């Protein structure tokens, strides 16, 4: 709350406050007046400054004008319609026009070819305000053409509106001409470089900067690919070290140029052998700026060189291994070349290489001791060397028995004597060969003359050329009687057809053997076996034949006798068979009568006969039956022969089935086929006979409670092998062979005739098989037999 005041005081206070407010207003007004004065002063000062600056500006402008007028290069100011407003003395001189004397429009002096470019340039000047390096051709007053370059800028008025353009003209006619000339020269150079047969590459720091077409063709890369490659990238790794060293020397200034032969890897991974020359180009400071690499493809040259080397090597190898001793001397009689053979011929321990360069002047004198006739040897060499003419096949006998053949070949090059070649050949063997041949002939001649076989040589007309002693003896003719006559006539050969046929065979070059009947001198008939072969001369032309004759008359006679004997044997065999047949038949009928009589006797008198009598009658019947079986067996045995075999396909399983149906098998015995038996090619009846014999033997000889007969087989390359196994009484060892012989049986069973297994054996023999057995008495027996397929 404000304290209460009386109104008098309040008015006083208000008056005081009002007074303060008035004074404050006056103060404020004074302040504002001062501020206004200050503003005026500032404005005035600014105006003054402005006027000063404008004056300064115009002064500078005129100063600049002076500069342009006095400028060395032509200077021109034109309005926006290309009319020249102002130009300096230099411009007047250059263009030939004076704007003060005549109106010039710059557009009229621009060469027509540059009109479009000029229009574009002006456009750009208007937009940007400046134009740099405008280059064009103009036609000056005296009608000559000039190349100019103009740097130009726009001139604006106070409102920044362009009113004119100013430009400095540079005469670049000469410059341009030089440029053209340079371009022309560069083009020429480029053509040379591009068409150079050498690959040319410009490198900077090993990088490929530029390369010509030949290089690209050689290396297979395109320009674009090469830009990314270093020279090392396409150099073969083994060469890089070497090139690096050289490059380093080049970089340090030791080398300005070098050339090496190195390999490059083509884009297709092929190898390019190239002679590479590198030249360094230095800048003004002596630093290597770039290198020019020239690459010459020498792949082919290298290949040719390789081939040459190879062929030289081959030749060298050939010479060194030649069977002829070679000695090549130069014109100073120094050894240029010898070979191993030469060294070994003359027992020289040094190698052919070591002999190179050795002087041969004394060689003849030193070596003469090796020859049988040393003085002649030395003299002859002297002669030859003096003559210098080709000498061939001089024979030299050496003390160790060898014979050498010597050739001398002088060597001339452009008619200048360059040395000579000695060649030596060991002809000892060749020489001895003739001697040996003669000795051989002597040897064989004596064999031929003394052998027991008759030898006859005839020509193609069958005229006898030669006959040996044995032949003379065989035929009864002397050699004189035989020579020159026709063989078949003198020997009175019967089989002329055969002889002619053999002659034809022989004329084709084949050898042959045949038999003929001839008559000897005394007219006796003889059988001869002849082996014949064609005869040829050295040229391989058939000139006749040679025959070896063996007298086989005795053998022939024996053969005829043997044939007769066989026939007789056959007849007697047949008779014997028929006899067996008749005998057995004749024997059987009385037996049947005895059997019938015994039966009747038993039936009629069985009531009166005592027991003993009945038994004896029974025994009689049995013996008769045994006798009958024996006779049947003999009959069967005698009929087994190859004549009666009729082979067909036989299923053995079926045969076994038939047998088990026919024969008596005791109840306790089981016959088992182990695995399915084969079908074989044989006579069914014989097969039946064999199996029935074994099986009936097996089933009857089993005393075990359970009898087992197993039939099995195995197949070998040539035979079928069957087995019949039983668990019967077994057969003692001593009977194993006996049982296959006729009339032999084990034990004394009345029913066995002892003939069955011998029939089996006979049949198996017919089929080229074998039969055997394995047996343990009391445990069982296994019979094996084989039949040829």
């Amino acid at each position, binding site marked *: 709350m404000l304290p209460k005041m009386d109104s008098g005081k309040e008015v006083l206070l208000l008056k005081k*406050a009002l007074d303060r407010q008035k004074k404050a207003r006056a103060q404020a007004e004074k302040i504002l007046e001062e501020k206004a004065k200050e503003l005026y002063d500032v404005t005035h000062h600014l105006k003054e400054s402005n006027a000063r600056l404008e004056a300064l500006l115009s002064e500078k402008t005129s100063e600049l004008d002076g500069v342009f007028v006095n400028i060395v290069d032509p200077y021109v100011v034109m309005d926006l319609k290309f009319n020249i407003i102002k130009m300096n003395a230099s411009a007047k001189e250059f263009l030939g026009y004076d704007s003060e004397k005549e109106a010039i429009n710059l557009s009229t002096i621009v060469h027509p070819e540059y009109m479009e470019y000029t229009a574009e340039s002006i456009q750009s000047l208007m937009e940007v305000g400046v134009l740099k390096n405008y280059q064009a051709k103009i036609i000056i007053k005296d009608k000559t053409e000039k190349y100019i370059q103009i740097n130009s800028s726009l001139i604006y008025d106070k409102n920044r509106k362009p009113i004119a353009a100013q430009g400095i003209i540079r005469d670049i006619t000469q410059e341009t001409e030089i440029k053209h000339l340079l371009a022309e020269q560069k083009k020429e150079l480029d053509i040379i470089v591009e068409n150079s047969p050498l690959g040319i590459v410009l490198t900077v720091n090993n990088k490929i900067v530029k390369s010509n077409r030949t290089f690209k063709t050689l290396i297979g890369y395109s320009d674009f690919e090469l830009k990314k490659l270093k020279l090392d990238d396409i150099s073969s790794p083994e060469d890089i070290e070497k090139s690096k060293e050289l490059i380093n020397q080049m970089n340090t200034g030791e080398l300005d140029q070098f050339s090496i032969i190195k390999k490059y890897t083509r884009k297709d991974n092929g190898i390019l052998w190239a002679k590479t020359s590198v030249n360094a180009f230095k800048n003004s400071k002596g630093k290597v700026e770039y290198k020019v690499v020239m690459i010459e493809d020498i792949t082919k040259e290298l290949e040719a060189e390789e081939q040459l080397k190879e062929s030289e090597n081959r030749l060298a190898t050939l010479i060194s291994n030649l069977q002829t001793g070679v000695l090549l001397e130069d014109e100073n009689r120094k050894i240029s070349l010898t070979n191993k053979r030469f060294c070994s011929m003359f027992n020289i321990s040094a190698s052919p290489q070591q002999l190179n360069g050795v002087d041969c002047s004394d060689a003849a004198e030193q070596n003469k001791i090796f020859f049988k006739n040393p003085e002649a040897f030395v003299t002859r060499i002297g002669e030859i060397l003096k003559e210098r003419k080709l000498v061939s096949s001089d024979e030299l006998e050496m003390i160790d028995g060898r014979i050498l053949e010597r050739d001398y070949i002088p060597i001339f090059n452009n008619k200048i004597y360059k040395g000579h070649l000695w060649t030596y050949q060991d002809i000892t063997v060749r020489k001895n060969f003739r001697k040996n041949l003669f000795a051989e002939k002597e040897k064989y001649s004596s064999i031929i003359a003394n052998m027991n076989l008759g030898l006859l040589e005839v020509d193609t007309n069958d005229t006898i050329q030669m006959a040996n002693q044995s032949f003379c003896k065989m035929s009864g003719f002397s050699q004189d009687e035989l020579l020159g006559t026709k063989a078949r006539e003198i020997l009175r050969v019967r089989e002329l057809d055969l002889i002619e046929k053999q002659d034809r065979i022989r004329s084709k070059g084949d050898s042959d053997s045949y038999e003929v009947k001839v008559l000897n001198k005394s007219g006796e008939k003889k059988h001869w076996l002849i082996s014949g072969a064609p005869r040829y001369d050295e040229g391989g032309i058939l000139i006749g034949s040679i025959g070896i004759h063996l007298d086989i008359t005795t053998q022939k006679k024996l053969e005829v006798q043997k044939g007769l004997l066989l026939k007789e044997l056959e007849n007697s065999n047949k008779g014997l068979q028929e006899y067996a047949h008749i005998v057995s038949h004749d024997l059987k009928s009385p037996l049947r009568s005895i059997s019938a009589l015994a039966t009747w006797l038993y039936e009629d008198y069985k009531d009166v006969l005592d027991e003993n009598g009945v038994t004896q009658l029974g025994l009689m019947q049995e013996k008769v039956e045994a006798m009958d079986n024996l006779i049947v067996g003999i009959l069967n045995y005698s009929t087994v022969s190859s004549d009666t075999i009729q082979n067909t396909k036989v299923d053995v399983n079926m045969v076994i089935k038939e047998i088990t149906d026919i024969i008596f098998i005791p109840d306790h015995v089981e016959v088992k086929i182990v695995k399915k038996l084969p079908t074989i090619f044989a006579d069914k009846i014989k097969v039946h006979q064999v199996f029935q014999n074994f099986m009936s033997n097996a089933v009857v000889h089993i005393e075990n409670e359970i009898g087992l007969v197993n039939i099995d087989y195995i197949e070998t390359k040539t035979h079928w092998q069957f087995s019949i196994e039983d668990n019967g009484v077994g057969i003692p060892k001593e009977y194993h062979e006996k049982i296959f012989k006729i009339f032999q049986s084990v034990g004394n069973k009345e029913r066995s005739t002892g003939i069955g297994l011998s029939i089996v054996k006979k049949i198996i023999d017919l089929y080229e098989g074998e039969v055997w057995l394995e047996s343990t008495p009391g445990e069982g027996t296994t019979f094996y037999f084989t039949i040829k397929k």
Partner: protein
Amino acid sequence: MKGIVFTEFLEMVEASFGLETTDNMIVNSNVPSEGIYTSVGTYDFNEMVSLITCLSEEVKIPANDLIYTFGLYLFGSLGKAHPEVIQSYNSPLALLYSIEDHIHVHVQKLYPEAELPTFKILEKTDTSISMVYSSSRGLYRLAHGLIEKCFEHFNGSATIAYELLKEDGTEVKFDVTQNG
């Protein structure tokens, strides 16, 4: 010191304590200007010190509290004089944050000779600001009042803590946390 501060101070004293107290203060302080101030003028700061000292004796209120109260009053006066300045902010923290970089820059344009305090921002979050007031005048309580009124203007309030970094109050740290 700007004339507006004196004119507004006298306005506040007159409004709060009446003409008599105002007159007594002017007479007793014996200031060279005799209490005549115009807002476009500039006056010696010591006059303000004398006026406040005399008022404090007259009304028995500590000088700092008076300065604080003046701060509260001054914000409204300044707002009236330059409403566009305050309108360009949508929160009291944004305004405080911009004193140095924005408001004082504009003040300097109008009154190039003005000697303004500095506010160095130490930290600012969405809801708080921490700054150091620094002025040879030591009128930190005036700043206190202005800050508080600023929040009121935006219909908010704040907890304002200050710590004298220098005993004479020429450097004071303010921690202002917006309430709610």
